[in-house]
């Protein structure tokens, strides 16, 4: 026991820790940098890069670290690169960690909900912004535990540097054991030192996880609180800091009614002169123009020659059974999907190809989407999970339109007020009900001032009692904003209420179209009639 304590405090062993840490830090840091590059290569659009990254992973994940250490130390000098022992060991550790870290990064990037990526695209974000603002913040949060694991494993793997003569803890322990014959005391002491080091890594992991936890205050505030708690003036400071987040949480059951309807809406509810509105609309410019659109997934034809024109301010409802191509049509209009034949013009411009008809890069498409102004509301809401309701609306305005934080927040607050959610502005999506989430999503889409709003079954994922609050928001938008809308839905009463025109799709073709009242009450095509009677029966 005396010997054990003596070795535990022996400077020779303790300074061995410095080398152990040095190699671990250099190895992990290098591995992280290379891992990011490798993951980027694998996720890129270019097959050759992915293949290169794959090959690297196969080689460096498939060979023992001890061989890589010896290779870096003894074989590289043969081609003129003579690294010191510490450099060679750190390089080998970095080369070895890189493919593991790359896989952690890739898995967590892929793990971010694809719907959020679609939503970000629809908001006109470029691929870089999507990666930096939407995917990375969420992926980093979920990869902390795996990276903590990797750090512990790198720390232990650093002991293999002893084979290339780095004076780290393991090498020093074995040398000392050879000289003194005190085998067990020495190895117990160095074992305990490793345990302390890995313990510190675990502690760091816990702190990082706490700082990144979305349900806690922001990291800066948490650190401030921590230091305030330590400071002698704590009573005042803690009270001051504890105040700023009044959380009106757990009011999920409480009502959040919409503000009183504007006169326009009240008038509309009383009944509109449909014929007058139709003639007024027909004089408007074309908002969306679809010509001969064909799209197929392999042998499966999804859209089979769609021709469609939507006037500015017109509200069009797409009806049709599941699989009739409604969602695909909407996703084609804002170029979330490509197509084989035909053309789509929004506001007179064709999305996805330049004036010579050449396809554009994802970045150029994103910029075009933002400037043409096609908003989209998704069935699954697709709010950004790491942002509050206000941030979901405001932040895209800053990233895409370049608004200042102040202006973006002001606009977001105004829109949240309009959809009746001003009091939930600081709530994360996961603390909102489905109906509330969809209202935030609508506010987010409208915030960009689009000329056309596409709504893809906006109420299909909602519990029945939440459907009406969302439909009411859409109804008011239609009346108040004079925004062109294309809505795919199964809600016939809502369609009758809000639609200027109904288009019935089946099997990828337009079967019948006309004024809402005509299609719903006097369908001419048997497929439409059958669909309507089935829907009404439900």
């Amino acid at each position, binding site marked *: 026991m005396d010997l054990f304590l003596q070795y535990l405090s*022996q*400077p*020779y*062993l303790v*300074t061995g820790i*410095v*080398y152990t840490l*040095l190699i671990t*830090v*250099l190895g992990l840091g290098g591995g992280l940098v290379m891992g990011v590059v490798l993951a980027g290569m694998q996720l890129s659009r270019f097959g050759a890069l992915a293949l290169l990254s794959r090959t690297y992973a196969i080689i460096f994940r498939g060979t023992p670290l001890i061989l890589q250490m*010896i290779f870096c*130390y*003894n*074989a590289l*000098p*043969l*081609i*003129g*690169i*003579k*690294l*010191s*022992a*510490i*450099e060679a060991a*750190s*390089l080998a550790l970095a080369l070895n960690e890189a493919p593991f870290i790359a896989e952690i990064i890739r898995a967590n990037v892929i793990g971010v909900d694809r719907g959020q990526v679609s939503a970000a695209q629809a908001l006109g974000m470029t691929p870089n912004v999507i990666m930096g603002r939407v995917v990375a913040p969420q992926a980093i949060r979920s990869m902390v535990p795996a990276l903590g694991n990797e750090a512990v494993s790198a720390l232990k793997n650093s002991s293999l540097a002893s*084979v*290339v*003569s780095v*004076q780290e803890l393991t*090498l*020093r322990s*074995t*040398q*000392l*054991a*050879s*000289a*003194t*014959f005190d*085998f067990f005391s020495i190895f117990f002491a160095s074992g305990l030192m490793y345990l302390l080091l890995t313990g510190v890594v675990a502690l760091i992991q816990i702190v990082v996880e706490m700082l990144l936890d979305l349900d806690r205050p922001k990291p800066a505030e948490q650190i401030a609180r921590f230091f305030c708690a330590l400071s002698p003036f704590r009573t005042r400071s803690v009270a001051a800091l504890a105040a700023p987040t009044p959380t009106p949480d757990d009011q999920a059951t409480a009502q959040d009614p919409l503000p009183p309807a504007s006169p326009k809406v009240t008038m509309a509810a009383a009944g509109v002169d449909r014929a007058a509105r139709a003639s007024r609309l027909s004089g408007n410019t074309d908002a969306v123009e679809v010509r001969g659109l064909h799209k197929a997934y392999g042998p499966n034809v999804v859209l089979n020659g769609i021709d469609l024109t939507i006037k500015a301010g017109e509200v069009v409802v797409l009806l049709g059974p599941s699989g009739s191509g409604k969602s695909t049509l909407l996703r084609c209009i804002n170029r979330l999907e490509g197509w084989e034949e035909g053309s789509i013009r929004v506001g007179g411009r064709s999305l996805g190809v330049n004036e010579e008809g050449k396809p554009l890069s994802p970045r150029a498409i994103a910029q075009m989407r933002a400037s043409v102004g096609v908003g989209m509301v998704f069935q699954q809401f697709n709010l950004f999970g790491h942002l509050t309701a206000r941030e979901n609306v405001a932040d895209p305005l800053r990233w895409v339109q370049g608004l200042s934080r102040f202006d973006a927040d002001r606009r977001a607050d105004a829109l949240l007020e309009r959809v009746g959610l001003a009091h939930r502005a600081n709530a994360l999506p996961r603390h909102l009900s489905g109906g509330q989430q969809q209202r935030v999503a609508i506010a987010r889409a409208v915030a960009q001032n689009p000329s056309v709003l596409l709504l893809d079954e906006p109420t299909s994922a909602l519990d029945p009692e939440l459907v009406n609050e969302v439909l009411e928001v859409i109804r008011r938008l239609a009346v108040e904003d004079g925004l062109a809308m294309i809505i795919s839905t199964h809600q016939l009463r809502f369609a009758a209420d809000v639609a200027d025109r109904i288009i019935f799709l089946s099997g990828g073709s337009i079967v019948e179209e006309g004024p809402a009242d005509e299609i719903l009450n006097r369908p001419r095509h048997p497929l439409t009639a059958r669909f309507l009677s089935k829907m009404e029966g439900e």
Partner: protein
Amino acid sequence: MKKLNIEGSRALLRSWMGLCMMAQAVAATVTGAVLLSAEPAAAAAPAACAGLQTKYPALKGKTLVNAINPHTPGYEALDPKDPSKYIGFDIDLGEAIGDCLGFKLTYKSVTFAALLTTLQAGQADIVISDIYATKDRAKAADFITYLKVFDGVLVAKGNPKKITGIDTSLCGAVAAENTGYVEVPLIQALEAECKAAGKPAPEIQLYDNNANCIQAILSGRADTYINDVNTVDGAVKAYPDKLAKATAVMLPYSVGIAVPRGKVEFRDAVMAALTEIQKSGLQGELMKKWNLPDNQIEAPSLVLAD
């Protein structure tokens, strides 16, 4: 063109190396000493050394790297009283050669099997680490001999397996050895003899250093460890209740200093210095200091590949 490429890659590496050097500097300040230093040789350099320094001026003032496997107390191991130093006969001899030719030594600790590969890779300039100069090893390095080889047979106290040397008494026994030791092929060669006698072949467990081999006997995993007699004596001294030396055998080898192949001038210089050190009686003094028997001394000769 080729040279240019290498220069280019070196330039690329510079930033990385700079980072490492900074980090090493930090580590060094904490350690207190950048490299493990050794105690100076006990006696002053022989007078003839001055002549050698004029003859081989290129070595003067240099710092060379000596690769060692410091798990052999008596030859090379940490100083238990001050683990920042290496001590032992080989260390003193190396320092004496350095003093004679005017160069200093730093040490690089590697596994036994990596001694010669480290030299070949240019990560070390010389190996003085109780390594036997065999024809096979001479394919990797040139050797200058300085000691005869006597092996001791280390066994558990009482020699329960009645082992009498590298002979049929090893049949069916388990021998602990280090990877790359010359004893390994000698023990393996017993297989035919054992079979002829109707006995099982000896089994060999391979380890990385002396301490592990000794532990193998202490824990009952191995029956014997055959190695340099002084190492065996040291182990018996450390564990007098548990270990014993069954016998000593002479092997047809010599202990040698390994230098890179083809560096003839350096080899000649080391050999000349060693000759002077032996002539002046300094090697004898050092052997006495480390309890090596006098009859182990051997006049320097070269062991080269055929």
